[in-house]
């Protein structure tokens, strides 16, 4: 099994088969993660640089652990400690690090499209760890992995994503992937956080949270920020929680065995009350756990494909 691509910049151009390949591979890596010795020698001698231009703890740590468990050398590069503050261009930074013999970049950046821009200008593999408001493909893949694990299937499930859809790279990646996998996706949020033209998502945009939650197998709440680029999109978090947050009564509209997801970090009491974040239906920590296996799978499948090419050459 391999992926015939150099990079994973987004799920918009990834096929259903490729997604399923990644998820199947991740199952095997999950088993490794549950062993006493959680390490395989697969990528010994490979160098992976985590190139993070935006703060992140969870995603960066998850990628770092994933790389290390595959025996790759992982190096963290954060923008604050970098030469980008000295006025070096993005591609110059990438090329300089690439010259040190890097096999893969895992990149997070605050501008949409910038990870694709990097991928087009480096020989190394590139994995998008979140670019602006565009995509966060491995987050979506770990969401899908978790859903499949809990529900036993993906096709035909009803999923609601609730929150700031416009500015969410998690929502975008999930929308592209879920459409391909035959998942019925519903979106909901304040109108200031729903794109004016939402039809490319190919899903339902609801007019109330009750409508969004109704008959759902999966409810995914997004982290809320009061403002974006200095523009207030909401009057207050208190009002958000009342109008758009999930609560016990609203959860009753969903299927009895519905799961609650969140890409984290949670604003407790805003999009999710603690009562629900920590309840039995919440799979938030499973998502984090599965993140490592899914990222191992993506790193593995991209680099293995390269190894095959080298052999053929």
């Amino acid at each position, binding site marked *: 099994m391999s992926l015939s691509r150099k990079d994973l910049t987004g799920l*918009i151009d990834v096929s259903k088969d490729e997604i399923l390949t990644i998820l199947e591979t991740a199952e095997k890596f999950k088993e490794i993660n549950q062993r006493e010795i959680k390490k395989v020698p697969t990528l010994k001698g490979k160098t992976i640089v985590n190139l993070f231009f935006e703060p992140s703890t969870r995603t960066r740590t998850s990628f770092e652990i994933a790389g290390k468990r595959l025996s790759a050398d992982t190096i963290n590069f954060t923008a604050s400690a970098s030469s980008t503050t000295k006025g070096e*261009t*993005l*591609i110059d930074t990438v090329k300089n690090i690439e010259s040190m013999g890097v096999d893969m970049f895992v990149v997070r*950046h605050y*501008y*949409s*499209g*910038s990870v*694709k*821009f990097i991928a087009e200008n480096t020989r190394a593999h590139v994995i998008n760890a979140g*670019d*602006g*408001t*565009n*995509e966060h493909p491995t987050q979506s893949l770990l969401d899908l992995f978790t859903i499949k694990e809990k529900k036993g299937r993906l096709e035909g499930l009803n999923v609601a994503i609730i929150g700031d859809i416009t500015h969410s*790279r998690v929502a*975008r990646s999930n929308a592209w992937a879920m459409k391909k996998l035959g998942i019925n996706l519903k979106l909901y949020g304040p109108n200031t956080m729903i*794109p*004016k*033209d*939402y*039809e*490319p*998502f190919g899903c339902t945009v609801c007019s109330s949270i009750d409508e969004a939650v109704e008959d759902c197998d999966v409810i995914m709440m997004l982290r809320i920020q009061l403002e974006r*680029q200095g*523009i207030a999109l909401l009057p207050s978090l208190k009002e958000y929680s009342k109008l758009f947050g999930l609560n016990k009564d609203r959860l009753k509209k969903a299927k009895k065995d519905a799961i609650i997801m969140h890409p984290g970090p949670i604003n407790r009491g805003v999009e999710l009350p603690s009562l629900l974040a920590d309840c039995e239906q919440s799979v938030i920590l499973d998502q984090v756990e599965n993140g490592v296996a899914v990222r191992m799978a993506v790193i593995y499948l991209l680099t293995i494909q390269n190894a095959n090419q080298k052999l053929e050459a």
Partner: protein
Amino acid sequence: MSILLKNCNIVNFDKTINGDIFIEGDKISQVGKLDIKMAEVIDCSGKIVVPGLIDMHVHFRDPGLEYKEDIETGSKAAVAGGVTTCLPMANTKPVNDNSYITTYMIDKAKKVGLIDIYPVGAITKGLDGNELAEIGEMRSAGAIAFSDDGKPVMNSEVMRRAAEYIKGLDGIILSHSEDKDLAGKGVINDGKISTITGLKGIPAEAEEIIIARDILISKLTGAHFHFCHVSTKGSVDLIRYGKSLGLNITAEAAPHHFSLTEDELLSYDTNFKMNPPLRTREDVEAIKNAIKDGTIDCIATDHAPHHRDEKFVEFDLAAFGIIGLQTLVPLTLELVRQNIFDINHFVKVTSYNPSRILKLNDRGEIAPGKLADLAIIDMDKEYIFDENLNRSKSSNTPFLNKKLKGINCITIKSGKIVYQL
């Protein structure tokens, strides 16, 4: 010095005739079947001869930003594109908000000696939108039109006073119509593609709101407002309405806005990043129809050179704009090939109408007594527009290394051959 152009398809805004053109000094002296011996002869068979194109909207970046373009390279790109008169915008460094800069620009263009330029004066000092620049002095120095292009004048009171003042000096306001707050940090059209790419959108309404406002300020003051780079269907509808009221308004469209749609942005290619942004198919069709029916009076390139380093960056950080002087002819001829309008209308929107808008009655037509500003065009030649052809200092255009059809072969400015392919 005299030149005889033989066997020409002479295309004017109102008719096409076969014949010869005799140029004496800087003017056209005779048009028709001519038998003249004592002259340099150029055989124009198989080509069309049109009045030199007039581009009401270019950025020559001179003074101050000569690493992108200067008046010499800008002039060279112009004549290569068949353009013999340009209006360079005021967002130079320092800003063209006083007669010294205006005079510098005109003098330099004269020294280069390829085209006429009429620098656009700033409306407000430093393009800051607050205090009126010395519009009268710039008018005396040779500016015809005034604009804070690149930045809108957001304060309606300031725009009103500017309009009144400019009207009194027989000048024109070139309105860069953009509601800065509504456009915000947007980088592409607000719509389907901004949803898909996660790039922040600029709604069509950001343009339309200011067009509506400036139509009303024209109504209030009687001043001539010319709307720059009109890009949306809504803008076209508003301008059509304004014209139906008999107001003193005109408009231009840029070739990229009738040639390309927002779909190009799926690539995140910064050579498709411009302001106003590329819009939808529906907008493109509306612009084409507006050029056809006269709602949009002319075509202007918004030639906006930028250094590679300003484009080879993250999309959000990339400069807005593309070069356009040398793609004006092939892209506009494409509308003739699409039967949107005929070749006479091509001349109308690229030369005749701009000459009337600017009251430059010595050009815009091929007729005895007019300036010998001419472009000799091969309508059918197919070629790759590459760096060998490009005369601009910059290469920021999505049409670079693309196949184009129709090319300017010879340019004559005031009786002198200033470009030969």
